[in-house]
């Protein structure tokens, strides 16, 4: 019996924090690739400490719904899941290349496959592009349009910026968008000055965050100048200093994220059959009008 456990941050304050986790779990569940799909959280229930005891399967894949390798994926999650003998070296990662480690979870005395975070998977690049499509409503978006991939920055975690640059570079190589830039919230180049970094009249802003919350709903709209006060709301697109900025919140809410979850589990050995194709198809942006 094959089980998928999606682990995410969750929130004590924001009721919407768990929504993308539940949504992606539902998408994966609907594919039938796993006998069960469970969710666990740092700030909600079931907690990381107790989620594995709710799991029935004997082939367990744990996928962190986090954007980068760092404190949570390397310390908190393995500790709270009680992965016996965990050492971050098990991932043998350069900060972007964590794939999986197979360890016994003491809580259930069974092996689990602990996967790298969704945010650094190569398939995440496609989700960022898909996000640009869904925000603009244009499945062919790219010509004459700039793309800003936005992250926290390195203040708390140097791998955070690595992930942003990785995806920005990969998208740039595809020559789909007029220009692609990596911008940050707490270091240069700062998202606050977005129009200065782009020549295109239209720029899609995609933040590499899992859930909508303070950063994506309050910080970014105000810092970028989409609105004076986030409670006023803003249009999509909004003209800021002559640049039309297309923005609609965290990339983690994009339905195609479920594909990355599946990719992570498949890379770790899960048998997902046709589920990858299913998810890519069912989450597509509709063509035409």
């Amino acid at each position: 019996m094959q089980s998928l456990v999606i682990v995410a941050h969750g929130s004590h304050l924001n009721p919407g924090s768990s929504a993308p986790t539940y949504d992606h779990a539902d998408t994966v569940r609907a594919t039938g690739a796993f006998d069960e799909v469970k969710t666990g959280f740092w700030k909600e229930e079931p907690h990381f400490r107790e989620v594995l005891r709710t799991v029935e399967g004997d082939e367990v894949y744990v996928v962190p719904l986090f954007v980068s390798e760092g404190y949570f994926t390397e310390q908190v999650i393995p500790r709270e899941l009680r992965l016996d003998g965990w050492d971050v070296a098990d991932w043998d990662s350069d900060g972007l290349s964590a794939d999986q480690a197979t360890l016994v979870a003491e809580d259930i005395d069974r092996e689990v496959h602990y996967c790298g975070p969704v945010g650094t998977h190569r398939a995440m690049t496609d989700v960022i592009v898909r996000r640009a499509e869904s925000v603009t409503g244009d499945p062919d978006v790219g010509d004459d349009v700039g793309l800003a991939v936005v992250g926290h920055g390195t203040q708390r975690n140097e791998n955070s910026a690595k992930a942003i640059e990785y995806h920005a570079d990969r998208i740039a190589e595809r020559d789909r968008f007029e220009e692609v830039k990596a911008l940050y919230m707490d270091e240069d180049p700062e998202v606050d000055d977005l129009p200065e970094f782009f020549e295109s009249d239209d720029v899609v802003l995609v933040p590499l965050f899992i859930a909508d919350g303070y950063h994506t709903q309050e910080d970014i709209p105000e810092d970028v100048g989409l609105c004076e006060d986030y409670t006023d709301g803003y249009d999509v697109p909004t003209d800021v200093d002559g640049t039309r900025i297309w923005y609609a919140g965290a990339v983690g809410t994009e339905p195609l994220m479920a594909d990355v979850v599946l990719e992570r589990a498949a890379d770790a050995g899960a048998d997902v059959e046709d589920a990858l194709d299913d998810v890519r198809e069912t989450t597509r942006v509709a063509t035409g009008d």
Partner: protein
Amino acid sequence: MADSAPASADAEDGEAERPDPPDIDLPSDAFDAVLDALDGRDPDEPLRFEGFGVARDDGDREGDAAGTYRLDPADDDPRTGLSERELHEALDERAPAVTDWYAFERVVGEFGPRRAFLRWIEDADGATVATRYAALGEGIERAWGELKVTATITDRGERRYDVRHADDAGVPIDELDAYDDPLDARDLVKLDAKGRYRPLKTAPSLAGGWVFPDLGPRDAYEAVETVYPATVANWHREREGELDVTNWRETMERQSGIYGVVKTWDRGEGYEHVNWVAEACCDDSQCLKRREWEYDDETDLDVDGGDGVFPCREPCSVVVSAARKWTRLESEQPRTYEFELTPSEKEQVEDVIDAVADGRTDEIREADTKEGANRYRTRFLRAKLFDEDGTLGGVPTEPDEDDGE
């Protein structure tokens, strides 16, 4: 919240009043499951049902490809050489026992927490099939936190479960919002009745107005585990004597990052601060889990752990987060401030603290000025005692605040 599990030990008293078990027809899926289980099974190891066993009986009719069966009643001679049709007849006569086997061995399955929970609901490890089926015919009610779970049985021996808020007991289904997907419970538990986010799912603030009127066994378990995650798993471990309790000290020692500071709150022998935490957060009025964790292996807390059905095995993330705040606040040294209050004002301060701590502020009527925490009374107190900077009694929080200018 009274449970109505079937009586087992006091069967003598209940015998006269017990309702008749419902008539059960043996469904083909149950019969097929029996045949399937017998297929390839050693004839010397009969499949056990309550009151009888069934085994393959291949030896009696040599050369009969279809195979035959043997029925071993507990209190009668075995019947051998039964054809499949005769076996069906015999099992149909014993349909309650067969459907009971089918329900737990094939529908519910082996997974420990789910199996234990669903067996507990109908006291399957204590009461006979006849007793349970009679009780299920009437409806067996169980409380789980603020949930009421009612188990019934169809004439095919299938269990059906109604899961709803205990406050909605007796409300007709068509007056409630009805759901059939247990995962829909994720939305039902998100907000309390006033629309406020519930960060702790076991807080006694579950909103009502909904019902899962007709769930199968697995979905009933999922619904309960969605409303109260991991509570069945922990309850099951506790029943098995395997609950892994992690006490306060060990939990705080484990914390890192912004929560690492909490371990500095524990100093020397004192654990009074943890009593205060448990009284603040873990009381039954705040959380329905029964606190089983203590200060450390040697030191129990002095406050009550509560009466919940399901245990709490370690300080939760809400407690850890709050403890982080208290660790910072409690690192401050007390100071002596001098205020002048009338006796009634002093009591009013106590009333306000009580009302907030007990979540009663909404219940205090607007014009009820007898209540110290009444809004007009409190606004009056503020108007009288706060200066233009919002400082109580005009007394600065920092003693040297006045001296600077």
